[in-house]
């Protein structure tokens, strides 16, 4: 079975999330295993948010902002 990593993305609503939104309007595709968490600002991200994502089973976490 192919490795299909679960990825959690913490995205800033003003840039990365808007980019993802635009990707949607442009019908660009990305894997459904990327789960996005919209934040008002990625400055709010604390290390524990990343740890909780890993604890919940994420294989990778990224912050985009």
């Amino acid at each position, binding site marked *: 079975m192919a490795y299909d990593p679960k990825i959690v993305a913490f995205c800033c609503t003003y840039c990365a999330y808007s980019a993802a939104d635009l990707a949607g309007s442009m019908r660009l595709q990305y894997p459904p295993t990327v789960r996005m968490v919209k934040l008002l600002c990625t400055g709010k991200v*604390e*290390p*524990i948010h990343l*740890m909780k994502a*890993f*604890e919940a089973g994420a294989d990778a976490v990224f912050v985009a902002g």
Partner: protein
Amino acid sequence: MIVGTRKPFEEIKSYVNGCEKILVMGCGTCVSVCMAGGEKEVQLLASQLRMAFEKEGKKVQVDEETIQRQCDREYFETVKEKIPQYDVVISMACGAGVQMTAELFEDRVIVPALNTTFIGVAEGEGVWSEKCRACANCLLAETGGICPITICPKGLVNGPCGGTNHGKCEVDKDKDCAWTLIYQRLKTQGRLDAIREIHPAKDYRVQTTPSKIVHRAYEEKEEA
């Protein structure tokens, strides 16, 4: 405030291997400010432990708690029923807090998660430096508010010594010469004469271990 740093994860984990119920307990005062043992650090350590045990296939319950101060017994009121339910408590307080916890819950194993490092000040975000060695005989009035016991690696009460080198110390060239700093400070204050005064040898008898202080207002109560 008291400044500490977290021990390596493997060391902390080695204290609790084999336990099934673990409480990670933080302290909301000094070590919280120096980002070593407050609520956020408790969350991170607990999360790390949960993942490490899960990876090993062990079923271990790791809970979190942070009290305002672990060096003051009244703050334990909120956790006095909870602590006895755990096999081990990982205290993220300074050494004083760990010992207070261990004294209050004698039948529980209390282990430290931090190395208590010094009494110091915040120099900027994320930077702390040592300022006081709690010598019980403060000299700061005569040294322009710079402590030679702490800042001078040799702890000289009269200086500078022959090892001063362009404002740095011969012991460690990255360290400032305390007595050069004192000279400059006294010069700024127009008090350079003070550096000519010879201080007698420091009375280390007052620096007994363990020290204890009873406030005058409480002396009778202590005796009773």
